[in-house]
């Protein structure tokens, strides 16, 4: 049924945004310089807003209310890719993850803005404008640090090699892939992945970083259907701590 296929798609988008938003917020107060502290904190706020837009749409389609959905599920009920739940690590890893993720996300929103589903198209049209700033930020920093010093280049290269198999997991095909493509909801994961490779390659070519041979990598799948690393549950416990003590609390 198309409705279930759409819900599956919306959950993975919303969950990615929520979890990466939370991870980004962990840089608040710890950024390597003030501008980056502000950038990751701002992107955290944007991503939470984006997840809310999709959880609200899911709620209109009969799912639970956004707070309950965000705070009351366990790790195995989350549809995010494993990439976004990994700990923030050092700044080089967070920057590379942000670069790989947001270049994928903007393509997803561009595709969804052409969706035959009007509600989804309206939200995607709005949000892709905001994500442009995230992509601008990531690409600028990767270009600068990817051509700066030996240390910055080798750190980014290592993080790129570590993160890439997880990033390929963003494009884990859904059970409903063909149904969504046939209905014109979006262009599908395989098409997005190809476009994404072109975009990130174009940026990396302007640096001293080398994109590993994708065909030799094993994508990390499973996140879209509830298989997660040991890092997700502690994140959820921390995120929902106040809500679980007092669901009516305002903060």
């Amino acid at each position, binding site marked *: 049924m198309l409705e279930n296929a759409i819900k599956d798609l919306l959950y993975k988008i919303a969950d990615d945004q929520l979890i990466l938003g939370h991870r980004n917020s962990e840089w608040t107060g710890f950024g390597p310089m003030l501008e980056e502290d*502000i*950038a990751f904190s701002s992107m955290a706020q944007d991503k939470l807003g984006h997840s809310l837009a999709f959880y609200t749409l899911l709620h209109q389609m009969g799912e639970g209310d956004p707070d309950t959905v965000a705070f009351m599920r366990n790790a195995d009920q989350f549809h995010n890719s494993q990439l976004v739940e990994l700990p923030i690590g050092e700044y080089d890893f967070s920057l590379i993850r942000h670069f790989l993720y947001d270049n994928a996300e903007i393509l997803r929103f561009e595709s969804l803005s052409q969706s035959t589903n009007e509600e989804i198209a309206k939200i995607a049209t709005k949000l892709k404008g905001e994500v442009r700033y995230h992509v601008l930020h990531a690409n600028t920093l990767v270009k600068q640090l990817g051509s700066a010093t030996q240390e910055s280049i080798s750190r980014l290269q290592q993080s790129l090699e570590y993160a890439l198999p997880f990033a390929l997991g963003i494009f884990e095909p859904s059970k409903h892939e063909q149904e969504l493509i046939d209905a014109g909801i979006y262009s599908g994961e395989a098409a997005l992945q190809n476009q994404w490779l072109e975009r990130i390659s174009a940026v990396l070519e302007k640096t001293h970083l080398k994109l590993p041979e994708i065909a030799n990598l094993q994508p990390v799948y499973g996140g879209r259907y509830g298989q997660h690393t040991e890092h997700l549950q502690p994140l959820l416990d921390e995120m929902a701590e106040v809500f679980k003590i007092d669901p009516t609390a305002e903060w």
Partner: protein
Amino acid sequence: MLTPEHIRDFLDEVKDPEIPVLSLNDLGVITGIEVAEDGFVTVRMTPTFAGCPAMEYMRAEVEQSLKRHGVQAFTVQMSFSEPWNSNKISEKGRKALKEFGLAPPQPYQGILVLDILEYAECPNCHSTNTEMRTPFGPTLCRSMHFCLNCRQLFEQFKPL
């Protein structure tokens, strides 16, 4: 009998809490006002940035303003059906931003290209010899720039 124009006038007094010189009308977030035959008022709003924490506050302020003016039956709806973009900021709003010390977003046609994101006129000396320092700032709707002419940092309301 209330008209949508009356309601729009009431909303002139509701300001963006983070930029108190800018009314919601001038910000362009009020997307529709209807008064039904029985007097029921519907105000439609849309967020500037989806994650803006001030939006809920603005919605509550709209409700307060309607109540203050004696409107009893109303609803304020927030939706993306007419998404906001920075071209919706009025001329009056742009002037107010400049006087407030925030560079207004450059109006654009069609697709927003990178040049417009990075372009900003210094609100202090009006030079356009400026560079973007970071696309993020103290609120989601602001970016930070540096004026190479008067050597001052300044903020811009981001084009979107």
